[in-house]
């Protein structure tokens, strides 16, 4: 599984070479960025197709003495998301950023490297390191416009996220203290005879740390701030990958290290589901109030991730499948929405709700894409969001979380209220003369690609579900994962 490590190295190398190219070879910049993105896509596809059964790659050939990289279906899902989002992101940003492109792409590649490192590594401390890489480069992207609001929001983001990192680091150190190892396969074996209280406190520290990065209410306040005045293509990756990678890490840590039995016993599952319900109800209320589209979408991201949390925390096979499917779908839907808003802000600098009045008639196909994506994210058939929401509700009902299932439907209604408002504004006639810079094809193409995926995955959900249905095997029962990682 040589390719697995290339998933991490290639973006790193690209970022480093971009640093040199910025100084000396400005001409190769374009070819470097796009060429590397295409090769990266190829590598990702190879890795994803080989993700079942899971493969282990030992870095430095040290086996259990060193750091290992492992591809299993759950990380395969995240690589799939990178594969879907990254190339459109590159193509879009190439046009969207009118100047100063080098640093932007350096950060983007570093961020992707950090995220792919997070999803591939099996070492607890390595996970922390890559998480910091992705966080810092994500901060760098979010202040990229250098505006007042951008810097302020990023500062808040950085402080909150660092606070979360500290708790994760504390828990990581304590794990080493308790077990003498950082390998995720050996920790659960050593964890078995640790008293309940210590384990649950450690779990709290992990959960809290990652919950800040995920943005569950009331730890969410940095998220809309960081989104408000950042480059919009970044928001695509942020809501699609950065937040999700924290979800990944949390689920990995909880399910592998602590095990489903402990989660059930300690009541974490109940708390997780309840927290999710609270989160999306409040987030929907807040999203209705927003006039800035970025903030609106940010709050909607919080709510959607709460759905994901519910799916992943009901603790059954169906729940894990549903939650993972929603992870993928949310990345696609939110990506589409952000890209459309990105085009609006590119063409006529519109980021407020009132600015987009009447654009439905100026950009008919783009607006149609927006409508499709927003209906999908609300969870109306026949789009992909509906499928995953259906699965989540079904899983929640099966596991006995009837209130969660009911409130998900309420949440669907609440989310419609604000998305519909945007849509209606989009299709309200505007008499004013608008100065419009016609968006070029390289802006539209990624948008349409993601938008069409919304429909395709809604009509043919078995396409991604082939991969996703294998996820619970290696999460729900951590025995398999451990056996493979230990070299079985």
């Amino acid at each position, binding site marked *: 599984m040589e390719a697995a490590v290339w998933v991490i*190295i290639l973006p790193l190398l690209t970022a*480093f070479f971009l640093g040199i190219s910025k100084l000396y070879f400005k001409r190769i910049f374009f070819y470097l960025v796009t060429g590397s993105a295409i090769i990266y896509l190829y590598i990702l596809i190879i890795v994803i197709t080989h993700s079942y059964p899971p493969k282990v790659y030992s*870095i430095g050939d040290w086996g259990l003495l060193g750091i290992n990289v492992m591809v299993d279906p759950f990380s395969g899902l995240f690589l799939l998301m990178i594969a879907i989002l990254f190339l459109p992101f590159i193509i879009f940003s190439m046009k969207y950023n009118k100047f100063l492109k080098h640093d932007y792409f350096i950060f983007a590649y570093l961020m992707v*490297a950090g995220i792919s490192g997070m999803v591939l590594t099996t070492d607890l401390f390595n996970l922390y390191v890559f998480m910091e890489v992705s966080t810092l480069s994500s901060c*760098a992207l979010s202040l990229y416009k250098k505006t007042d609001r951008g810097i302020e929001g990023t500062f808040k983001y950085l402080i909150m996220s660092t606070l979360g990192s500290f708790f994760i680091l504390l828990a990581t150190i*304590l794990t080493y203290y308790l077990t003498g190892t950082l390998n995720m396969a050996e920790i659960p074996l050593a964890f078995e005879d640790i008293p309940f209280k210590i384990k649950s406190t450690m779990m709290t520290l992990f959960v809290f740390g990652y919950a800040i990065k995920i943005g569950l209410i009331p730890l969410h306040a940095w998220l809309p701030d960081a989104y408000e005045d950042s480059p919009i293509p970044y928001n695509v990756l942020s809501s699609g990958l950065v937040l999700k990678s924290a979800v990944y890490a949390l689920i990995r840590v909880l399910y592998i290290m602590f095990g489903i039995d402990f989660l059930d016993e300690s009541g974490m599952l109940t708390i997780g589901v309840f927290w999710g319900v609270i989160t999306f109800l409040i987030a929907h209320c807040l999203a209705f109030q927003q006039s800035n589209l970025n903030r609106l979408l940010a709050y909607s991201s919080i709510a959607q991730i709460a759905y994901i949390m519910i799916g992943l925390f009901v603790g059954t096979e169906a729940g894990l499948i549903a939650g993972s499917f929603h992870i993928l779908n949310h990345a696609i839907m939110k990506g589409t929405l952000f890209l459309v808003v990105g085009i609006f802000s590119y063409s006529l600098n519109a980021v407020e709700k009132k600015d987009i009045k009447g654009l439905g008639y100026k950009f008919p196909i783009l607006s149609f894409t927006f409508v499709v994506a927003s209906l999908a994210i609300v969870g109306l058939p026949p789009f992909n969001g509906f499928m995953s929401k259906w699965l989540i509700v079904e899983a929640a009902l099966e596991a006995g979380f009837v209130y969660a299932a009911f409130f998900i439907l309420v949440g669907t209604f609440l989310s419609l209220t604000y998305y519909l408002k945007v849509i209606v504004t989009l299709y309200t006639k505007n008499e004013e003369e608008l100065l419009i810079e016609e968006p070029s094809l390289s802006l539209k193409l990624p948008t349409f690609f993601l938008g069409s995926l919304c429909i395709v995955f809604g009509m043919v959900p078995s396409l991604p579900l082939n991969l996703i249905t294998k996820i619970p095997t290696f999460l729900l029962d951590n025995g398999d994962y451990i056996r493979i990682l230990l070299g079985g």
Partner: protein
Amino acid sequence: MSRLNEVFKKLYKIGLVVTFAYFLLFLFYDIHNLDNNRKRYLSAHYISEGVQETGAINLVASVLYDYRAFDTLGEATMILTAATVLAFLVPISKATTFGTTFKSIVKQTVKLILPYLAVLGTYLILFGHVSPGGGFVGGVVLSIIAILLTITYSVEFSEYIVKPDQKKLVEDIGAIGFVLLGLLGVFTGSNFLANGQAYFGTGNAGEVFSAGLIPFINVMIGLKVGAGLAIIFNSLIKEK
């Protein structure tokens, strides 16, 4: 009324932190009282076999650059990210002089010290695997050269001696070199960042030319850290 509110708020915050401290105390106490012969087989293995397996006497170096070299790659990336962010946030054109002017005695002393610093840094880097030191420490010492120049003379002078572009280049070369060194393992048929396993000759432990790739990685990290910290410092200074 608002005063009371303030007091309450303060008490609340203190209460939160104290509660958390109490929890931590409890946690540490529990962990401490646990059966204390915890199995540290990993570190035991490193201590007993590490020198043979990696060829480095400095076990920290062997952990950093061999067993857990992937972590080091990550942290090298961190410095690069930070340096890039800073360089990006602070425009190059806005160099301003540092406020204080020093007597010539300071300047002469600095002139005197600089070569020693360079030698010390190089020594720390090159002998990182056989003695205390290593790429990070050496890199920090090297970066002090640039920092001292900046403080005593000025940003302009420091950047005249070593151009920002050159620093950036050195940093990137360090990072790329690290990755390429790691890839050597792949090319020789072993895994990424392999050292002893790929037959890079761990040599006789204790000699300078031993431990396979570790000295070279040390050099790369040294370059990277030195250049990165210099960039970070200069950027922070430049922004009034």
